[in-house]
């Protein structure tokens, strides 16, 4: 066994460890430890990814001494390693970009707490990504929920508490359904390890017994994860949670937490239920339809919104709709598109949240459109970044959003039944995206004579500006040289199966 194969385990443990350490360190030191740890895990993931690409196949890593089917396992493939790397990058950038805001918005005594939560969140996300065991997955789903609630609530005002409570209720409902699904699956198959379950499921199908319970199980798990990842119509908790929490939290929640659940769902589809079984179960059509509806209604809600943060939050609903549409397409290409969109949306959405905070800061902290007039001149970096994010969302070539759109559309064309609805909704949703994002861009670039708000320059916000530049580069990178990434995703998906 190569030493590198330990890295997934190291990543999860390092993250947990640093969380524990942060609670006792001074505030600045905690911040450094946190930053370093995320970077370190990123490096580890990158090394692992390279290793896997060279090796060309995934491996299973046994935790403890019990072999399957009793023990606990970690599994690492290209997709897992890549996602872990990407999550680290986004989390690092989100933390950097929101750092200043965090200091302003969160009570000083809670800062250490924040770093603990972030580390916890990261470890749970990594565990979700790497685990080969359904029950472990469930445990980390719960940890994830708790950490996320903490991230929302850490900025203490009435709104966030309400939002956190809502989030908590919806999330618990989702994890409850997931747990039910896992229990039923355990009843049906007698296993908790993914590979074993899949074999058992095949057996069930061949026997022709328990078809209905299996369907119910699939439904329960899909719906549970859909609720947790805010698929329309289960998105009611989302705008408040993303809209009022501190900006790093919003960026992390929207780009990582919900994506973690979707990743888990994809994993379940491929590794637990089996892709064909899932594809024949009609659940896929339901996900497809809800995805389409999410694309439209999320955008429509966003158009009506007058608050820039809530608008971006609603846009997430639409983007998650894209991802589910891709999953619902029922083709490998559709899945590739969805996975790519997970990356592209994560890169874009956190960019938008971070840029939006820069704009609201130079508008007296107000998030209303009227007050944002001319904000892009007062904070040029944030203005450019927001524009880039918007263009990417609208799907202008050279940015990541275009490639996701391209992949989705290409996938749609290959499914004869779902092609037309998918394409038309895609086009309409592009128009709707254009309406609310470009409206904002025009608004922030409309000069206002004699504005009472002060401008900021590069000197006052070095970290912030550098973060934004990194985000923009990430976005353009995804948009211009997407082919290697798409190839990696395809390889990763094939390793799944």
């Amino acid at each position, binding site marked *: 066994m190569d030493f590198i194969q330990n890295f997934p385990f190291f990543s999860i443990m390092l993250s947990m460890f640093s969380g524990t350490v942060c609670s006792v360190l001074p505030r600045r030191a905690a911040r450094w430890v946190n930053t370093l740890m995320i970077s370190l895990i990123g490096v580890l993931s990158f090394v692992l990814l390279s290793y896997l690409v060279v090796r060309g196949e995934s491996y299973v890593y046994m935790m403890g001494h019990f072999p399957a089917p009793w023990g606990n396992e970690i599994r690492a493939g290209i997709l897992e390693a890549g996602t872990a790397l990407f999550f680290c990058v986004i989390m690092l950038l989100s933390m950097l970009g929101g750092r200043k805001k965090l200091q302003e918005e969160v009570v000083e005594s809670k800062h250490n707490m924040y770093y603990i939560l972030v580390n916890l969140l990261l470890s749970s996300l990594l565990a979700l990504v790497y685990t080969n065991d359904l029950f472990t997955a469930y445990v980390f789903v719960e940890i994830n929920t708790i950490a996320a609630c903490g991230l929302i609530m850490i900025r203490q005002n009435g709104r966030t508490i309400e939002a956190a409570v809502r989030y908590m209720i919806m999330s618990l409902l989702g994890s409850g359904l997931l747990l039910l699904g896992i229990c039923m699956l355990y009843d049906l198959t007698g296993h908790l390890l993914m590979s074993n379950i899949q074999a058992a499921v095949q057996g069930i199908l061949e026997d022709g017994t328990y078809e209905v319970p299996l369907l119910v199980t699939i439904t329960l798990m899909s719906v549970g994860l859909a609720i947790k990842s805010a698929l329309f119509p289960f998105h009611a908790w989302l705008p408040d949670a993303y809209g009022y929490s501190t900006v790093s939290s919003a960026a992390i929640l929207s780009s990582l937490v919900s994506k973690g659940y979707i990743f888990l769902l994809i994993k379940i589809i491929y590794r637990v239920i089996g892709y064909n079984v899932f594809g024949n179960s009609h659940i896929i059509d339901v996900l497809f339809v809800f995805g389409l509806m999410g694309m439209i209604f999320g955008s429509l809600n966003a158009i009506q919104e007058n608050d820039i943060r809530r608008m971006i939050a609603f846009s997430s609903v639409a983007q998650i709709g894209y991802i589910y549409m891709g999953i619902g397409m029922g083709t490998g290409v559709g899945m590739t598109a969805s996975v790519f969109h997970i990356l592209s949306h994560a890169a874009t959405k956190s960019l938008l949240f971070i840029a939006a905070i820069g704009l609201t800061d130079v508008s007296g902290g107000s998030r209303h459109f009227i007050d944002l007039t001319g904000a892009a001149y007062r904070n040029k970096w944030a203005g450019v970044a927001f524009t880039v994010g918007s*263009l990417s969302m609208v799907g202008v*070539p050279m940015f990541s959003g275009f*490639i996701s759109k391209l992949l989705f559309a290409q996938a749609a*064309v290959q499914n004869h039944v779902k092609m037309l609805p998918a394409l038309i909704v895609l*086009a309409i949703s*592009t*128009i709707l995206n*254009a309406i609310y994002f470009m409206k904002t861009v025009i608004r922030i670039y409309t000069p206002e004579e004699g504005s009472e708000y002060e401008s900021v320059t590069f000197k006052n916000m070095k970290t912030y500006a550098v973060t934004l530049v990194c985000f923009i580069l990430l976005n353009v990178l995804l948009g211009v040289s997407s*082919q290697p990434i798409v190839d990696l995703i395809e390889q990763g998906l094939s390793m799944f199966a």
Partner: protein
Amino acid sequence: MKESIMLLVILLPVISGILVPLLPFKKRRHMEIFLEIVVVINSLLVWGILLEFPEESFTLARFTGNLTISFRVDGMTMVFAGLVSALWPFATLYAFEYMTREERERSFFAFYTMTYGVTLGIALAGNMLTMYFFYELLTLVTVPLVMHTLSREAILASRTYLYYSLGGAAFAFISLIFLTIYGSTTDFILGGALDLERVGERTNTLLLVYVMAFLGFGVKAAICPFNSWLPKAGVAPTPVTALLHAVAVVKSGAFAILRLTYFSFGTDFLEGTWAQSVVMAITMFTIVYGCSRAVKETHLKRRLAYSTISNLSYILFGAALMSPAGMVGALTHMVFHAVMKIASFFCAGAVMHQTDRHYVHELNGLGYKMPWVFGVFTLSALALMGVPGLAGFVSKWNLALAAVESGNPLSYGGIVCLLISALLTAVYMLTIVVRAFFPGKDFDDRAVSEIRDPGWKMVVPLVVFSAFIVVFGLYSSPFVEFFQKVANGIY
């Protein structure tokens, strides 16, 4: 080497445009000289490419799979790039004088010059993706120009423009996808690049996609019912309305549709199908609709904008005929209409600049006070109507000829629409001329006594365009023969 010049002509204006707000010009005059030199050099380069054109295509970047950003010069490119590069220096000259009364010139000229490069990008695009890319960019660089005055109206107009254009592109995007999957290549090849074996039984789906893409690109060409952005965008300064909303932007839409029809889907695949009937019917309706709205409109620039809507659909009608002759007609009208409409818009702009009058009923008796402006306006009006001997007649002639030749009963209806539109053109243009020159008995001469023709920077472009109108009208054969060669794939 030659190939990289293609990239140069796109980048030069874009970079100079970006430089305009950054360079420390001491006087306005310096900026004028800088810009005019850039534009003229660029136009010369473009003409250099066109005369000595490179055979090979130039690939800049590669997206996924076979999707590349690449440039190539072919006949269509020569027509469109030649047109744009011929008009731009004059329009810039005109803009120098016009913009003296507007604010924030720097940002205006920055975007104005950048648009030049982007438009050339559309002309030089060698495949669908590249065209789509520059098409989107064009929307983005022209939005600041529309909202230049920053009045509430301008901002609303720019939003409408943006939504319509991006929305249209979203539908055009679908066709790009289908071409990547059902085409042997996405490069532009006269006759189309669809792989008919792969299409198989999905003909109807592809036709539907074609119609959607036609409408999608048609948004920029202001096809009905997606035309309302164009009259609204008339709030922009006149150099923008004249050059962009009569030539560069809207003709990009028409250009894209020609590419789509003749070079991507191919007329063999489309001719005689229901898709052809649908798009043709839409263009016919737009032809009449635009004119009727122009007759009703009393704001001078908006009236001309509606006229543009109608005339653009002439081009699209030519495209919808789906025969080489139709393409000749479309190309002829694309070039000739550009000259006629830019002339009439510049006249309108000159009137607004000199007198601050915007409505048709305010133009009484101005004809004798501004003889140059209204002389050119009358000429362009007659040309738009299609009086023989002027440019408009030739292009309409070619369109009608193609329609008659096609033998399609619907296209006969198209001829009727062309003629109805010609009549309505007479109504909305000549009423202005009559007002200007025959103000009526009880007209008080003192109201206009202060008014003069504008300065040379405005008059020179007007005169040049009039000369073009007459030359195109009288000696059209070389141009039309060239278009025929283009349509038959010789270039």
